[in-house]
């Protein structure tokens, strides 16, 4: 086992300038490796920051590790780490897997110091830091090439760390009450049900945008004397402008569903909600 004294102890004597890196795959799915190839292309060009891939760990300053550290690769990673010169011996964990185990966190094939964690661990344990001390973590599944460039520039002290630990403590419920006060004309229950219906039709990404358009129309229509005709008129008017056929289809389905739910609620019949 590698001693941890170096990782937590003395600071580096010299500022890092040109870093030679050796790439180790510790059981990754190759997503991160493809992104690593990307940063060497002329478009991203990591070599202008001094990064250069070398063919043996004996020439390397830094170890680029991808993958969740399987049992099979653990010994190979350790050998590569020990083969590096003792100064500066940097380890860069690339990808969520190398940072904390990622999607494979509870796999039996992963190397762990303790077989089962008893306590609830914050931050989540796993990945490459189980075996060797890590200098910089670059999460992402896979990380963008820009993200890897950013991580390297943090290491070279060209950029500052952007994330900090966030902590929020609720003082009283009043804070939440103020937010909930903004009630729309439409019943909250119906909004939730329509929201789920929209997800079925056009997916989670465009859901909130389309639902907002629809609810605005409903609010206008409900103020009129004849809301049913007014709503269908508004939707037809909107559909003439809209080029996206998915949104046109979705608005028409939402209109039908809205009246079905509302009529059932008012007449106290049994309804099938979408959520």
């Amino acid at each position, binding site marked *: 086992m590698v001693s941890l004294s170096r990782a937590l102890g003395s600071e580096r004597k010299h500022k890092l300038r040109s870093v030679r890196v050796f790439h180790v795959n510790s059981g990754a799915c190759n997503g991160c490796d493809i992104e690593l190839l990307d940063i060497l292309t002329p478009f991203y060009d990591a070599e202008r920051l001094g990064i250069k891939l070398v063919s043996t760990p004996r020439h390397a300053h830094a170890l680029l590790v991808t993958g969740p550290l399987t049992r099979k690769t653990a010994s190979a990673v350790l050998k590569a780490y020990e083969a590096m010169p003792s100064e500066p011996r940097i380890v860069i964990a690339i990808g969520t897997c190398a940072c904390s*185990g990622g999607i494979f966190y509870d796999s039996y094939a992963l190397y762990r110091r303790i077989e089962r964690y008893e306590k609830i661990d914050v931050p989540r344990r796993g990945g490459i830091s189980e075996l060797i001390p890590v200098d910089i*973590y*670059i999460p992402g*599944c896979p990380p963008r090439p820009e993200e890897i460039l950013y991580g390297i520039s943090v290491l070279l002290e060209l950029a500052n*760390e952007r994330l900090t*630990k966030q902590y*929020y403590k*609720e003082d009283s419920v009043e804070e939440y009450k103020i*937010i909930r006060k903004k009630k729309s004309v439409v019943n909250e229950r119906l909004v939730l049900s329509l929201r789920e219906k929209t997800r079925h039709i056009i997916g989670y990404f465009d859901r909130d945008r389309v639902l907002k358009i629809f609810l605005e129309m409903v609010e206008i229509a409900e103020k009129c004397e004849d809301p049913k005709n007014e709503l269908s008129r508004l939707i037809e008017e909107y559909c003439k402008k809209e080029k996206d056929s998915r949104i046109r289809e979705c608005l028409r389905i939402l209109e039908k569903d809205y009246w079905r739910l509302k009529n059932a609620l008012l007449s106290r019949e049994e309804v099938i909600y979408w959520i």
Partner: protein
Amino acid sequence: MSKIVTLEYPLKELKAPEEYRGLPYIDPHKCIGCGACRNACPSDAVMKIDDIKNGIRKIILDVGRCIRCGRCEEVCPTGAIKLTTIFEAASKSRENHIEIIELKLLRCSRCGRYSEFTERQVMFALDILPREALEVEALDKRIWLCRDCRRETALSEAVDKEWKWYYGKLVKSTWE
């Protein structure tokens, strides 16, 4: 004439496209602490920890474990958790990847113990219940109680109303 194609990224700022699935972020003012994201998360990046003694629920998000699949955003009932377009998560310490939200659990108005849901959850439930189809008085009486107290009050009320007379008679007859 040659054109420079290289990106000036680490030196100049860059924004990811709108559709990019970046780091998730929980809006603490909207979160009700229901733990739906915890149940949906395939890589266990979100945790829900209850401290019933002190009446605190913690929702902990670890960005370093997140694989940006967007399932949490799909299931969140209030739209509190969202994937942003921020991608710069590299850090020298894993502590920086953590977001903690501390919410209060509901204190039962009858027995004074903390129950296993938050105050915000109850308020959200009150908002989405169709009031037209329910007895509002009976609801308001019982919704601020814990699970055990709710059962007890429901039972005792039923006993009081319907069975008191019969029950009293039965007890007397057995004693005699």
